[in-house]
């Protein structure tokens, strides 16, 4: 199940969010994505799949995805 959660601050701003979903068949593989932004704006997450692990890191609206 792909799922998303969010928290608003009452002023129209999204203070926190989280997402958990999967790719099936992309690049003929399967990947699971888990990513979230906390109340301080820190974005962190991972993408995991067959023979690959990626990290997601950033702040507010900027982030970097790095696969190794």
């Amino acid at each position, binding site marked *: 199940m792909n799922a998303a959660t969010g928290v608003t601050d009452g002023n129209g*701003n*999204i203070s926190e969010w989280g997402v958990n979903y999967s790719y099936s068949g992309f690049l003929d593989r399967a990947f699971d994505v888990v990513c979230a932004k906390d109340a301080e704006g820190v974005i962190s997450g991972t993408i995991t799949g067959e023979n690959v692990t990626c990290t997601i890191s950033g702040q507010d609206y900027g982030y970097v995805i790095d696969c190794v």
Partner: protein
Amino acid sequence: MNRTILITLALTPLLALTACEWNNNRMSQWEKDQLESRAANDLDDFVAEFEGFGNGLSASAEAREEGDDYEWSTCIAGYAGCQRCYTMAGIVGEGGTLSMEHTLGDEVEECAASVTLNDVYYGYTIHQWWWDGAWAPARTACSTSPGTAKPAPRSPSRGATTTTVSTTTTT
């Protein structure tokens, strides 16, 4: 040419083939780049979606009274030039329950002819300050990736989609 060189040359294709087979399950740098790019695009879309909901959610959270009507609309520039428009409308019922209809107003004409519609959100539950639900990440025929993207699992619904959401508040 001596025997050592001949043997080496003779084995080179086999070594290369073996190396290729061994690496077959490993992602190439190009594949990693594709994954990074697609994930970044999806997350950008995802954040835009959330931002689009922000004002409406906040409005609905303010001073709910039984019988109050709520409605708001917003449009977000989406993937591959598609614009997504939402209308959410509802009424506060007995006990502060807010029932809402979430309508996606995407218009395929705004995209290329081969484009199918973007993400379909469904099953949201909106609470006073937060919400949760299921999200179908869409990568459809909108994709311009070079022959790699395949449609992700999604709701069978296409086009204008209505989703009923409800919540109970404490106001």
